[in-house]
């Protein structure tokens, strides 16, 4: 069933790629952007599996603000939960639906009770088994026992307990494969819980493993590390991690992240934090990453636009994508900051090669008004990010080249007077201390 869904998802994506590929460069920039339209929840949800699918759907339902979309998301979340055993989440969703979806989506108490009963039984069984293993002191069995417990709690939505049990298996790991397994489980649960410090530390542990990791695991770890950095607002590091992610990732980590996300997160972070050269070498010329970019053509286009200085179109793409990005469970907090940084970066890059820039033309290129642009430039100049001055009368920006000779003279004179002042103050203080010391000495005698 799930495999089918996945397949359906990729087919949709393939269609999009085809549409993009069919047109050529110049006309593409004026083409309406598909993702700018309302998010296709079904296609979106198909990219994910497991718990993250439910959390993402619920997140969309909470943030989108469109009733039809909200109900759609809730309906799918309901269906998805029914496949699992998480009764607590089930009740929450029921409360959110509040009977708006008709009798088919009501509080199915019979199902919930049945699941709960089964869970009780299973828990007892697992406890008995684990106790038996522990008395027998068979390491591998104990590990399995804890692992089963972790799986059990995870399925029932008790993430804290699940995390504890997964981590407990650590003492019983005998091979590096077990350790990796433990780390991946811990990372998965931590991401669900939003505990990204744990994610970073378990990624570190997994990467220290002696045996060579298989490419899929490496890709998974890169993604997890990228997410952790993203949450910590270290966009440059996040970008690096996402860009290092291998194409082996494929659809193997859909319980956390879809390859489309890797492209989006990586690209936006890279745009916000990389300089031109790095952007070219690490993003545009990166063959691995190109595979990801193909999945999200808008992002690929906007990166190319940015690099080829078609800022208006680049910003247009960004503007169109924004609504959907705000519905992303990991990215929504960072969208504003990233967008601001990308915009500043674009402004800086635009002014860099020129001695003087006509603000009217620049405003055109950025699709904004001259006064608005002036304010933005002012902020950038004040923060010392652009070395230029604005001729507000003629609306021209002039580059300003620091006069090294004058600057040096200024600094020398300043350093001189500082030294002068400090030495004098120091001598005075030394004399005071001496006086104090002499006074004490004379009192003693």
């Amino acid at each position, binding site marked *: 069933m799930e495999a089918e869904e996945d397949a359906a998802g990729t087919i949709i994506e393939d269609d999009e790629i085809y549409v993009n590929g069919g047109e050529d460069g110049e006309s593409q920039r004026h083409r309406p952007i598909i993702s700018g339209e309302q998010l296709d929840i079904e296609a979106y949800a198909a990219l994910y599996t497991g718990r993250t699918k439910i959390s993402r759907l619920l997140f969309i339902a909470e943030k989108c603000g469109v009733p039809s979309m909200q109900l759609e998301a809730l309906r799918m979340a309901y269906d998805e939960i029914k496949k699992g055993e998480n009764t607590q989440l089930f009740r929450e969703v029921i409360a959110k639906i509040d009977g708006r979806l008709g009798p088919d989506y009501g509080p199915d108490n019979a199902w919930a009770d049945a699941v709960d009963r089964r869970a009780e039984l299973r828990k007892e069984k697992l406890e008995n088994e684990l106790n038996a293993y522990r008395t027998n002191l068979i390491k591998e069995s104990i590990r399995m026992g804890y692992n089963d417990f972790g799986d059990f709690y995870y399925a029932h939505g008790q993430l804290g307990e699940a995390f504890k049990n997964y981590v407990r298996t650590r003492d019983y790991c005998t091979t590096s494969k077990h350790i990796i397994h433990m780390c991946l489980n811990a990372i998965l649960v931590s991401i669900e819980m939003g505990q990204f410090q744990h994610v970073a530390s378990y990624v570190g542990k997994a990467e220290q493993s002696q045996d060579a990791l298989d490419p899929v695991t490496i890709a998974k770890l890169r993604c997890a590390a990228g997410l952790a950095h993203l949450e910590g607002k270290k966009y440059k590091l996040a970008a690096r991690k996402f860009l290092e992610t291998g194409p082996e990732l494929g659809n193997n980590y859909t319980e956390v992240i879809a390859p489309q996300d890797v492209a989006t997160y990586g690209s936006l972070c890279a745009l916000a934090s990389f300089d031109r050269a790095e952007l070219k070498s690490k993003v545009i010329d990166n063959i691995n990453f190109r595979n990801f970019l193909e999945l999200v053509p808008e992002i690929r286009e906007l990166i190319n636009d940015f690099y080829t200085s078609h800022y208006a179109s680049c910003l247009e793409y960004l503007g169109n994508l924004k609504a959907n990005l705000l519905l992303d469970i990991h990215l929504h907090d960072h969208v504003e900051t990233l967008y601001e940084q990308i915009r500043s970066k674009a402004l800086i890059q635009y002014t860099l090669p020129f001695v003087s820039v006509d603000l009217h033309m620049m405003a055109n290129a950025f699709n904004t008004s001259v006064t608005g642009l002036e304010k933005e430039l002012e902020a950038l100049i004040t923060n010392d990010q652009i070395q230029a001055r604005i*001729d507000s009368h003629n609306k021209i920006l002039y580059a300003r080249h620091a006069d090294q000779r004058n600057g040096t003279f200024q600094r020398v*004179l300043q350093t001189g007077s500082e*030294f*002068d002042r400090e030495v*004098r103050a120091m001598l005075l203080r030394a004399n005071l201390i001496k006086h*104090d010391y002499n006074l004490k000495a004379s009192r003693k005698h």
Partner: protein
Amino acid sequence: MSSAESLVAQIQGLSGNLADLTQLRNYLKQSDDSLRVESTRLAPLLNELDPSLHSLGYLYVLEACTSGPIAKEQANEFVLLVARFLNVCSAEQIRLAPDKFISLCKRFKDQVMLLEDPMRGVAPMLAALRKLQTSTEQLTTLHPDFLLLCLLSKCYKTGLSILEDDIFEVDQPRDLFLYCYYGGMICIGQKQFRKALELLHNVVTAPMPIISAIAVEAYKKYILVSLIHLGQFSTSFPKYTSSAAQRNLKNFSQPYLELVNSYSNGKVSELEMCVQTNKDKFETDKNLGLVKQVVSSMYKRNIQRLTQTYLTLSLQDIANTVQLSSPKEAEMHVLQMIQEGEIYATINQKDGMVRFLEDPEQYKTCEMIERIDSSIQRIMMLSKKLTTMNETMSCDPSYLGKVGRERQRFDFDDFDTVPSKFNI
């Protein structure tokens, strides 16, 4: 009466050379008590002595006959008499009895203050101070008194002449604190904020075992001057500041620190709010005038920031960005700043545009070279002083004793490494 005559004879006879003077001083010291007893009858003796030739004797007699309480009617006469003496006395002679001289000067200062005419004391005190000093690097106890008189009589320029000397030798920490505090106030009066900042900084960071009211007041003014002059204030102390100051100063100056906070936001309205709420406190501290200067400095600071960003800007825009009410007011501010050399700009009244220019200084003129040269000379002098001081310190027996005591025991091998320890 015969003792008085013999005293006069002694003074007249022994004022010639140094050996005689030393003898005279010993004699006077012995007869000090008897002089005091007869203090009321000594006044006529002064007429027989010449204050410039017999300064030492004159000093003792004068000190003795004014040691009692002075009636209000006599105060004027006393001030005249002492002022004349201070102006003409011989520096060499009075330095033989600095204690007497200082106590006379202090009494003189008190009398001038009682008469509520501090101006009269300024010139004689300056003369006295110069005579008492063995070098211009020495801080005497008279320094703070002199500066206080300058402050009270608003003779700031005269006060500045003393403040230009570099002071290194200090007898009493309290003198230094007061000297720096009053000096700072005089410099503020003359709008020499850089110098004021330096003096106040000395008070705040001076080594002190317990915190003093002088330090607290100096810290408050230090904050304000720093905002006016530098446009910012760092609330952390330099690491050499005494722990007493680091612990306590901030507790005593909360309203000022609030001012610093609202200043750093760069919004005039916010700053004015803060001034309003703490107005009473500033007023009781007598700092309200300075606080007002802080507010107006923010306009300047904001305009100065614009010069970094803009080549031309209309007066209207300036008024908007720095929150002035009208272009006219903005023009006044810009004009004033151009006059004071704080920005380089031209105003085009026809279009209402201001054109900001770069600093025209090219560092090519002879004056600039001379300035740099003198600066280098000064720094060389200072470094030499530092080295000498370091050397004397490492030869100082009490210092060596202390360092030696801190080391457990000298092994023979240790002797090689000892000198390097002294280079600290």
